[in-house]
């Protein structure tokens, strides 16, 4: 019995030892996780963005440059595809552990400001750690919401009609600045009749295009607090689309869905589609044809409703190192060498210094620069539509429900009702 008891004691000791070891491991892990500052004054900041492998390669090189200039700041990186990025960010931010600095876009500024996640970089500008001078086309104001600087633009994009050039040529269509929706509809018919291909992937569920159409008519997709259009407006828009799909002017949505993630233009299902101007880069690598940029059709022959959109860098309110984060952002938007590495990957560079530092030599990137310059010359650019808290969910619903109309899965009336129901929930939350 004595022996029995010994065994028992030993076992307990062992178990206790094991628990201690586990606890110890836990402590080490915590130490690693929290170790953003070390004895010698070196700080580590976490930087997260969405994108693919090629963007990661470029960003890695720019970070190497940054770390060379600021040897006391180390940058830890993390990236995912767009949708996964926001899921992970949401989870991290709600758990109080967001990255110190991250890629952002206009649609998310109010959302995360309302959730108290974004750092007002204004104080860092005043402290001289971040310069907001030297931006092109008024871009320095893009990340300002209610007087707070919540994001710093790294590049600009604008909506465009991306076309399959040979298809448009074969149909005998030459879009010019100021062409109207009637011209566009006629062009769709010509393309269908002469090339046997649908004229467009289908503009009806692209939120950013419908926004332009509404702006041409004195409205907008969003107001500061809600939707800027009525159910009747959307019914007209989707009813026109339903008919165009039936007539083969817009691509068969089923085929469009099936060939994803490839785009319908690159897969030769459609002659063009409305999207951001830097997408020609993607289509060129995906498809066999030659792709170009055409102007947005207008309602009155002048106004396109266009504005510059932009990717930004934002800082998290909980960062321990606001100064270093500001220095990082400053470097990324002003350093000419960064522009040479990044090219037009995140749009045309936002600052004049970076814009001048990178002059594209390939026809695709050249065309993007020319397109944005032509917009400035034509004087069609206007202030951006506000994006209220919940705008991202509205955009997803618009895309999905519009697709269901195109697929014939929903009647227009039903779809409009569903979109307004979902949007009210998203914007009211």
């Amino acid at each position: 019995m004595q022996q029995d008891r010994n065994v028992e004691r030993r076992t307990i000791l062992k178990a206790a030892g094991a628990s201690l070891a586990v606890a110890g491991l836990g402590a080490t892990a915590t130490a690693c996780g929290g170790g953003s500052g070390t004895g010698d004054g070196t700080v580590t900041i976490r930087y997260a963005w969405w994108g693919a492998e090629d963007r990661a390669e470029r960003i890695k090189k720019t970070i190497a440059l940054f770390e060379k200039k600021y040897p006391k700041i180390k940058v830890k990186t993390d990236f995912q595809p767009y949708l996964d990025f926001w899921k992970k960010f949401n989870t991290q931010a709600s758990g109080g552990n967001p990255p110190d600095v991250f890629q952002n876009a206009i649609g998310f500024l109010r959302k995360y400001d309302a959730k108290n996640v974004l750092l007002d970089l204004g104080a860092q500008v005043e402290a001289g750690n971040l310069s907001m001078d030297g931006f092109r086309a008024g871009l320095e104001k893009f990340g300002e919401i209610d007087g707070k600087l919540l994001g710093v633009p790294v590049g600009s994009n604008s909506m465009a009609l991306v076309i399959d050039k040979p298809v448009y040529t074969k149909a005998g269509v030459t879009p010019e600045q100021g062409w109207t929706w009637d011209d566009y509809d006629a062009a769709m018919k010509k393309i269908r009749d002469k090339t046997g291909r649908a004229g467009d992937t289908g503009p009806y569920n692209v939120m950013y295009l419908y926004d332009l159409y509404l702006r041409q008519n004195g409205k907008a997709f969003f107001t500061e607090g809600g939707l800027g259009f009525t159910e009747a407006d959307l019914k007209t828009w989707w009813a026109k689309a339903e008919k165009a799909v039936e007539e083969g002017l817009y691509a068969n949505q089923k085929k469009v869905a099936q060939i994803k993630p490839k785009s319908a233009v690159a897969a030769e299902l459609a002659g063009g589609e409305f999207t951001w101007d830097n997408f020609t880069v993607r289509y060129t690598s995906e498809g066999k044809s030659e792709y170009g940029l055409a102007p947005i059709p207008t309602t009155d022959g002048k106004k396109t409703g266009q504005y510059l959109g932009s990717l930004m860098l934002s800082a998290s309110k909980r960062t321990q190192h606001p100064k270093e984060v500001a220095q990082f952002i400053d470097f990324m938007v002003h350093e000419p060498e960064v522009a040479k590495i990044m090219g037009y990957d995140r749009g045309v560079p936002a600052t004049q210094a970076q814009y001048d530092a990178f002059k594209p030599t390939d026809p695709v990137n050249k065309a993007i620069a020319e397109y944005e310059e032509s917009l400035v010359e034509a004087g069609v650019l206007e202030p951006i539509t506000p994006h209220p808290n919940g705008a991202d969910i509205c955009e997803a619903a618009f895309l999905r429900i519009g697709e269901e109309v195109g697929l014939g899965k929903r009647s227009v009336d039903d779809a409009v009702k569903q979109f307004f129901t979902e949007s009210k929930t998203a914007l009211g939350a």
Partner: protein
Amino acid sequence: MGTTVTHAPATEGLSKDKGSEPRHGPVTPPRPAALKRRGRRESLAGFLFMSPWIAGFLLLTAGPMIASLYFAFTDYNLFDPPKWIGLDNFSEMFADERWRHSVRVTLWYVVVGTPLKLIAALGVALLLAQKRRGQAFYRAAFYAPSLIGASVSIAIVWKAIFSDDAIVDRTQKIFGVDVGGWSGDPDMIIYSLVALTVWQFGAPMVIFLAGLKQVPRELYEAAEVDGAGTWRRFWNITLPMISPVLFFNVLLETIHSFQIFSSAYIVGGGAGGNACGPADGSMVYTCYLYVQGFENSRMGLASAMAWLLLVAVALVTAVLFWSQKRWVHYEESA
């Protein structure tokens, strides 16, 4: 918690047994205090050994479950503190057309997928129950998919197989069927999910095989003497004799089907940024739950959905248990 309660008396019983052998040692009267102390120490050891499991259960399962029960009655967006809203989440759910659609998709999947899977499992089990050459190989080969089938990688492969211009699409074109890839088709994607679950019939098959082995040979011999054909023997002997096993499989697979998530999420994901397949074609219940919780940040609503699913599955299980009186035959022996 349940385990710990049952465990404590067991240890006590053990120590009492050991304590009641004073014959071998010197004649000492039993010392209840010492025994008690020892019993306590042993149960302490027991608890200590279980502590990783208990900690895991409390922190990772019980705690979150209780929290989610509370969240189910709140408006909770992960950032702001939860706000009590009573049953509003539930009334919103019932009024939500997308939610009703997800219920329909899930029920369809359960009602079509589960029987097909079980029929496949039983059919192959019947074939494999016969003695033939290479039997072990066939059993292993048919069982293998259910080992790997639930994995993310297989779902990715499945998506590739059923996407546009992939092997399924090309094969059906040979036969003049040109409907394109299934995983991008709002009407067809659910069939590819059913195919995925049916393909994993290995697990219920093994259980059926075990059940078939238990059926006494003499019953078949007697039936054969009486002139019963193959079908008759299956219907009147095999099926009733394996009905407990069949019940077990029906129960397990039904519950399992209600919980489908990863395969639907992966096969349906990526199409147009929609997590639930084109035009919500593969939006099973858990997929919509995920969208509400993680895409729309509505954790309160998502928790309510999760609890409703739990209750629904419990009800279905209860109905199945109740129904077994009518069709499950337990051997009344010994």
